[in-house]
């Protein structure tokens, strides 16, 4: 019994330590973010931020778009197969439009970015730790949080919401294609129905979620990299851990935010 309690206690302390480390890292990054901004910040840091934006955003664009188009089709087809029975096929438009803007667009994007970039952050920083590059930065009076993490975080904050919007557009486009081929609904009419079913708060809700997801992905990925101890095997473990933990936390955060919006915002 004592061993079980010890195990639970140790695990709880370890998880609290992880959450504490994430918080400390987040505040330290927010303090250092000014240097990653254009014009007012350090131009080398801004250059690094733009490079990160290309890696996190532009390079992920084909994958995110394709995922959104496939999911849009799936959602429309699954919705249609049920709604057709009640003669409510036109509700497929609401289902796809609202479902993507509020939920699927940001979530699919976060999962894709977590798999692509969250793991890359952990691997890059973990390797830098193993090869003493992080120590090398510190002895050159350059803080790794400012030098490595701040550009990644700023880039994620900008690109993840942008990717989410593109994901929304692709998903809704896929819904439009389905409606055109299944009911011969004119594209312009579909667009008009979409615009009437989406409200501004749906879009804002999705964007708020994307910012939170970007924060989770960037910080979990980087923290896993900073926590690497030992050799290359540890880098591999941290990379896996970064994807698993960030995906899990993204889904938990999504559930929390959806609940908050459900109970506070009147549709």
């Amino acid at each position: 019994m004592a061993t079980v309690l010890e195990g639970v206690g140790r695990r709880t302390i370890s998880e609290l330590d992880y959450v504490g480390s994430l918080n400390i890292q987040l505040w330290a990054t927010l303090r250092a973010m000014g240097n990653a901004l254009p014009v007012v910040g350090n131009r080398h840091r801004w250059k690094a931020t733009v490079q990160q934006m290309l890696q996190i955003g532009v390079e992920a664009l084909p994958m995110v778009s394709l995922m959104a188009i496939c999911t849009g089709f799936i959602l429309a087809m699954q919705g249609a197969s049920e709604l057709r029975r009640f003669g409510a096929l036109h509700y497929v438009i609401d289902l796809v439009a609202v479902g993507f803007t509020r939920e699927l667009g940001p979530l699919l994007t976060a999962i894709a970015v977590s798999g692509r970039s969250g793991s890359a952050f952990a691997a890059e920083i973990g390797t830098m730790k193993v090869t003493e590059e992080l120590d090398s930065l510190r002895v050159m009076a350059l803080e790794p949080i400012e030098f490595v993490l701040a550009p990644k975080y700023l880039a994620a904050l900008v690109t993840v919401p942008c990717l989410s919007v593109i994901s929304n557009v692709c998903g809704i486009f896929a819904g439009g294609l389905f409606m055109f081929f299944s009911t011969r609904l004119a594209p312009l009419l579909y667009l008009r129905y979409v615009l009437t079913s989406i409200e501004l708060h749906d879009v804002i809700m999705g964007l708020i979620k994307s910012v939170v997801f970007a924060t989770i992905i960037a910080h979990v990925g980087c923290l896993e990299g900073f926590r690497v101890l030992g050799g290359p095997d540890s880098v591999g473990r941290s990379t896996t851990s970064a994807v698993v933990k960030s995906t899990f936390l993204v889904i938990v955060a999504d559930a929390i935010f959806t609940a908050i919006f459900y109970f506070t915002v009147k549709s």
Partner: protein
Amino acid sequence: MPIISVRDLVVEYDGRRVLDGLSLDIQQGETMVLLGGSGSGKSTLLRHIIGLERPKSGSVSVKGTDITRCSQSEMKTVRHSIGVAFQSAALFNSLTVEDNVALPLREHTRLAPPIVDLMVWMYLAAVGLADFGKLLPQELSGGMKKRAAVARALALGPEILVLDEPSAGLDPIVAAELDDLIVLLKEVFKMTVIVVTHEMPSAFRIADRIAMLYKGAFRAVGTKEEIKASKDPRVRQFLDRIPGEGAKTQFLEEHFEKYLQSPEAN
């Protein structure tokens, strides 16, 4: 006044004492070699001297600033006066050799890009890598990487140059060339040099003084001649390459004999 002063330094990892109350003064302009076997604590001492870790107790003063208790801004000032070349060279793999050397200059000075380029070329030429600036670190040999790391450490014109195992993993000729380079750089740039090594020829080639570490404590600190003449059994063991208990030669011999007599071997 010493440029670096270590006082009663105690370092523990998970309750295991790694450095046991070390005290050492390093004078301005001297080359101090920290000598010792694997696990003796020399790299740990070095990491505390450059402020990468905080000790359990004791102090490390660099140019009069206690870096174990100073503020971040004071630490930043101290770090500008220290150049470090790590054992693994620790060059940034995504940057060319030139950009690695230019990094501290671009970050900490307001020099115009052509001046930075000129200084980078100068430092690379000083370590014999003037023609290799455009290469990536992974395209260099082990010795060239270490030279590039020394060039980067020199970039801000530090008063103190710290080298962690500069000749580890290098063949004797390249190691000797690197020793000569360290001696030359010290004469040209008038720096204080701290070198961690376990290579005896290298230590005696470059050192003004040697501090010999054994199990987290100094066994001897003195000039090359004093160390060579030392009667301390641990120092003699290290100098005369006498195997320690760790090798367990007799145990291995018995084990092999037993194995050879066993039916499995026949």
